[in-house]
């Protein structure tokens, strides 16, 4: 069977499984649609949370980012796992005890205010739509790379699949499909990583293989540090960002993770408070399997790339001798080569091989266009080469290569010369990662509309059946909007993701924490705190990301990605001050706070 047939088989086969699971566990009440009836086991919820959390970006892009940024990217690794410690210790058990359906539900009830609820809904919408457009784009990209389908067509197929199983199955349906999707994606990610580790170091586990000694007698990371410094790059294991900035970026990602509504809502689906704690631990373990593999994939990938491109003698490899995967991904537009020194050999070093925005190559003609090929070496023509100047003190030659970071995961099985079915598996795994996150976000959006806006604010008199219908309609509309955003992505996707984390960190996290741990917190404090956190973070990110603010004007040297953490501190301070100048919350609210702190439900004793 050809690779393409195998890929179709795996991808389409997995779609059928997801839809079948959703049909078998479809929701028939709002409680099932919103929180899967509250009967999910901690183990299943842990897997579902892990799949929900790990998006197309975690699966395809993160290893590449770590590969090229080295230690500087460890903020992502620590931030996106450490947030679960906060969730497990500070949020999940108490929100489970509170026992409602959504995050705005908690904010609205705890702060006895529909204004607070609506502010929360706005935050949820903004965060979730930002995220989901990236996921829809991700499904389109997977289709286009593995199955030679147009990106927009791929997005439509992805929309159709998510539509069927999220709208039909609700939270109950997506929980069990996410369990299946977790299995697919973790298998797809770890199998190539295990093979790669074994072939390079003889170790079985990537986590220990990263510390192993190579055939040349040097530890992997020492070898890599040596390779990159010879080529003029910054050290792999040491950082170039300031410590203050690293600190704030990591903090913003960590607290932002703990404030993301689609993650928090997963802990409403387990039966008991202790199950919420246990499933948070499971979720982190399942996430850790992938995240702790990433640094190894990143380091081995970078070594392979350097040694393949520059050759054993570090003089470059003649283009016609480059392996098949290099040419395949060149055709897909993820690699480009411009022969700056006209020696017919590929060379990879520090600096940009191409000019223009983001230094991405602009190809002349399509991949299958024979005329658009270089006459001598037959590589694809690129119209925007850089000047090719370099400092001979720092590096031996100019950089001639553009490599998209996604290559580190996508090309792994080919670099390790693994069989075709493993490559097909990567496609199914990437698809699972994108779809599972998209479905989780979709549900959060739909629930905010039907429950928080319609049932709790605008028309409290609607029946359960009408609310369920509204939730399904809202999910349908949300799929269409998400698909549209995926097809017409704003060209600042990465910046918008920083915004989503910053806002979750600066708005939700403090409001929820103070709602649980600070009984005296009242609605005035919470609302003013959320608004201060929201507006300060929004202004800072918009000014420095979209209005051309210069890095030298960063406050305390904090980049926009890390500002959410400072916004969070402002939120806490303002909320505390305002709460002390205004009346304390009513008695029945203080009773609620007392009640959520104790796992057992004592019924009337606490109300």
């Amino acid at each position: 069977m050809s690779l393409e047939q195998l890929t179709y088989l795996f991808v389409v086969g997995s779609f059928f499984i997801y839809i079948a699971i959703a049909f078998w566990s479809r929701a028939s009440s709002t409680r099932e649609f919103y929180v899967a009836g509250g009967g999910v086991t901690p183990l299943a919820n842990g897997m579902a949370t892990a799949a929900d959390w790990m998006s197309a970006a975690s699966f395809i892009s993160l290893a590449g980012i770590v590969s090229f940024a080295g230690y500087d990217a460890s903020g992502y690794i620590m931030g996106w796992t450490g947030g679960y410690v906060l969730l497990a210790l500070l949020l999940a058990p108490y929100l489970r005890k509170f026992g409602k359906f959504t995050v705005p539900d908690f904010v609205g009830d705890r702060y006895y205010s529909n204004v607070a609820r609506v502010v929360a809904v706005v935050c949820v919408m903004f965060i979730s739509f930002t995220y989901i457009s990236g996921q829809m784009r991700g499904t389109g990209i997977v289709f286009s790379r593995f199955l030679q389908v147009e990106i927009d067509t791929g997005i439509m197929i992805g929309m159709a699949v998510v539509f069927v199983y999220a709208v039909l199955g609700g939270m109950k349906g997506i929980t069990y499909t996410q369990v299946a999707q977790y299995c697919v994606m973790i298998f797809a990610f770890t199998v190539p990583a295990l093979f790669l580790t074994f072939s390079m170091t003889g170790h079985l586990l990537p986590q220990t293989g990263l510390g192993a000694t190579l055939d040349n007698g040097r530890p992997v990371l020492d070898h890599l540090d040596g390779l990159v410094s010879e080529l003029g790059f910054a050290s792999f294991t040491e950082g170039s960002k300031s410590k203050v900035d690293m600190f704030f970026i990591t903090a913003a990602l960590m607290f932002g993770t703990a404030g993301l509504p689609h993650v928090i809502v997963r802990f409403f689906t387990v039966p008991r408070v202790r199950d919420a704690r246990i499933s948070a631990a499971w979720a982190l373990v399942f996430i850790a399997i992938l995240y702790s593999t990433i640094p190894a994939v990143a380091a081995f990938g970078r070594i392979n790339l350097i040694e393949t491109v520059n050759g054993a003698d570090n003089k470059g490899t003649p283009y016609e001798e480059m392996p098949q995967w290099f040419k395949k991904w060149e055709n897909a537009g993820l690699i480009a080569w411009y022969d700056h020194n006209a020696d017919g050999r590929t060379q990879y070093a520090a600096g940009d091989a191409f000019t223009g925005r983001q230094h991405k190559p602009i190809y002349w003609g399509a991949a299958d266009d024979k005329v658009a090929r270089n006459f001598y070496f037959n590589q694809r023509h690129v119209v925007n080469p850089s000047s090719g100047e370099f400092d001979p003190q720092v590096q031996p030659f100019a950089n001639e290569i553009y490599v998209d970071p996604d290559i580190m995961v996508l090309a792994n099985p080919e670099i390790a010369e693994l069989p075709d079915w493993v490559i097909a598996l990567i496609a199914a795994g990437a698809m699972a990662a994108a779809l599972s996150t998209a479905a989780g976000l979709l549900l959060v959006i739909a629930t905010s509309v039907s429950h928080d806006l319609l049932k709790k604010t605008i028309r409290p008199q609607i029946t359960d059946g009408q609310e369920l219908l509204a939730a399904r309609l809202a999910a349908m509309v949300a799929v269409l909007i998400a698909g549209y955003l995926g097809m017409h992505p704003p060209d600042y996707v990465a910046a918008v993701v920083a915004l989503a984390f910053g806002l979750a960190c600066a708005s939700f996290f403090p409001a929820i924490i103070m709602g649980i741990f600070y009984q005296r917190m009242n609605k005035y404090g919470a609302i003013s705190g959320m608004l201060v956190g929201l507006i300060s973070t929004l202004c800072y990110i918009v000014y420095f990301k979209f209005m051309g603010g210069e890095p030298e004007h960063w406050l305390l040297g904090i980049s926009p990605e890390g500002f959410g953490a400072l916004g969070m501190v402002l939120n806490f301070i303002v909320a505390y001050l305002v709460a002390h100048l205004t009346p304390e919350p009513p008695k029945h609210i203080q009773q609620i706070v007392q009640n959520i702190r104790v796992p057992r439900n004592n019924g009337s004793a606490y109300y």
Partner: protein
Amino acid sequence: MKQDSSSAEQYWRRNLQIIFSYLVVWFAVSFGCGIVFVDELNQFNLFGFKLGYWFANQGSILVFCVLTIGYAVRMSRLDSEFDVHE
């Protein structure tokens, strides 16, 4: 069974102590070893890793897992001790 408020308060205080001690470890391995003291730790070597780099990319994840599992186990015990389990 009705909870009297003093034991509920005690339960909550014990919980806060546990949370605090776990968060100290959480902060120490990630922000401490992984960021603030990373250069100092990088002078040490652990099974082929620079120690600071290891904490930032592997060690912190491992400790995070231990912390969440430990908290779930510890709190289940505390719940039974104060008879507030479900």
